[in-house]
């Protein structure tokens, strides 16, 4: 059995919510959510859903409200208005049930640099109540899958930026979530590292049925078959399949559609932008 097979086998008994219609429920539902920092409105009555086993891109410029939305979904901030559900579990009222189905990769690095790769994973596993022996097995599996098994004992500080990101994704998958959030996960990485990570995440969707919400400001990270949500100045301007969003906006591609919808000049398309 290869490492990938082993990881997939571990996913065969998937934890999903104990609701009758759980399979049909959206992986993530955002309904009428607003959030403000004092007088400044970061999110204004936004709503969209992420379907199970889908890759949904959340496209928006810096400052659009993506990170605020992620903080609300992960309950780092309290929800001021509206509802957020993860497989039918309300984040505000059943945070434990909701968060155990969720894996997150935040925009800033959240690894402990002074601990080793394995120690970071074991710590994360403990925070999800996963017993040490099981955590060690899972750690080996996810490290093999991301090609970091030979760095298991290395200090995180000694990893490259791309390796750290891969480790963060592996960590987010350790407790076998059904929904994965990634907030600008490729920022600061070179072209190859970006492509590797994006491919890896897309494989998670197709091979393991994990639902993904991928926040980005880079157009070239969005595939033609993806679901797309465009967030601009705290509002959802468009959502649907990429082709549909482009057609509705009257653009020829995502770039022109985005410009038509937002009135902004191109921001994405290259990693440096």
């Amino acid at each position, binding site marked *: 059995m290869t490492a990938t097979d082993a990881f997939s086998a571990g996913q065969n008994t998937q934890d999903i*919510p104990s609701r009758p219609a759980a399979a049909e429920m959206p992986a993530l539902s955002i309904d009428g959510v607003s959030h403000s920092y004092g007088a400044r409105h970061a999110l204004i009555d936004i709503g969209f859903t992420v379907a199970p086993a889908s890759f949904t891109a959340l496209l928006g410029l*810096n400052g659009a409200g993506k990170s605020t939305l992620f903080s609300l979904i992960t309950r*780092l901030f*309290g929800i001021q208005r509206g509802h957020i559900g993860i497989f039918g579990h309300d984040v505000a009222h059943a945070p*434990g049930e909701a968060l155990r189905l969720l894996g997150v990769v935040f925009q800033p*690095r959240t690894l402990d640099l002074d601990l080793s790769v394995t120690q970071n994973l074991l710590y994360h596993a403990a925070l999800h*109540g996963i017993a040490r022996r099981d955590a060690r097995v899972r750690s080996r599996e996810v490290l093999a899958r991301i090609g970091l098994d030979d760095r298991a004992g290395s200090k995180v500080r000694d990893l490259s930026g791309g390796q750290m990101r891969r480790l963060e994704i592996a960590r987010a998958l350790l407790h076998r979530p059904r929904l994965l959030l990634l907030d600008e996960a490729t920022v600061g990485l070179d072209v190859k590292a970006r492509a590797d990570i994006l491919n890896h995440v897309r494989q998670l969707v197709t091979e393991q049925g994990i639902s993904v919400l991928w926040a980005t400001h880079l157009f070239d990270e969005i595939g033609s078959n993806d679901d797309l949500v465009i967030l601009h100045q705290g509002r959802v301007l468009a959502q649907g399949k990429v082709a549909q969003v482009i057609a509705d906006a009257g653009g020829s591609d995502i770039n022109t559609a985005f410009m038509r919808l937002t009135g902004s000049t191109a921001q994405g398309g290259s990693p440096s932008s």
Partner: protein
Amino acid sequence: MISATTIRPIRSGFSLTQYLTCLNGIVWREALRFLHQRERFVSALVRPLVWLFIFAAGFRQVLGLSIIPPYETYILYEVYIAPGLMAMIQLFNGMQSSLSMVYDREMGNMRTLLVSPLPRWFLLSCKLLAGTAVSLLQVYAFLLIAWFWDIAPPPAGYLTVLPALVLSGLMLGALGMLISSGIKQLENFAGVMNFVIFPMFFASSALYPLWRILESSPMLYYVCLFNPFTHAVELIRFALYGQMNWIALAVVGGCTIAFMVGAILAYDPSRGLIRRGPAGGEA
């Protein structure tokens, strides 16, 4: 593919084993971080030892001590200040823990903890227990060195002081956690030294008995009397000699609960006392 998988309904809530696993993991991580920071361990020991070896030696001849409970005979000044120095170790450790929480928050590590599905009050309590465990290591290392300096409480005192140290460690850790919730940047933490640690330590019975302070300044006496750190020191002092100071126990216990509730509320996303904004560069 997802269609090929077996659906197993998730259990509601968490088992006791999962809670214990989480507690174990947080304590383990704190211990690892402490061991990686050897300078922190050394400085945690050097600070009270400087007070013991230099300050106390100088003040021994200046400051006369009458026989006061729990002591049954005249004692050296070094013996008197030892419980205060033990509490000082815990005070600095509590503030150090809160400093590391601010650092973790700035660096993003704190998110790893806070997005755990286990209840937030439990996670913060684990963090407190972990910090207290680290402070116990430091206090017992100090007691070991102090023993060579002829500061030797009754052998049973090393055990009877343990619950008092746990409680005072929790109180000071909870205070640090509460303070950390209100500090937005690491740079602001210097103020904690000036406005929390020094006043708490000096306006207490750590260095001089309260009756001495009453003789010199009644107002300062009341400041010391209402200082929770004074009661932490007295709780430790009595416990070290196998006795119980009930007033100190009540004050330290009450303050521990108050500070913990305050910290948990402050870190609660829906009821947080601190209105949080986005981290730098995010929106």
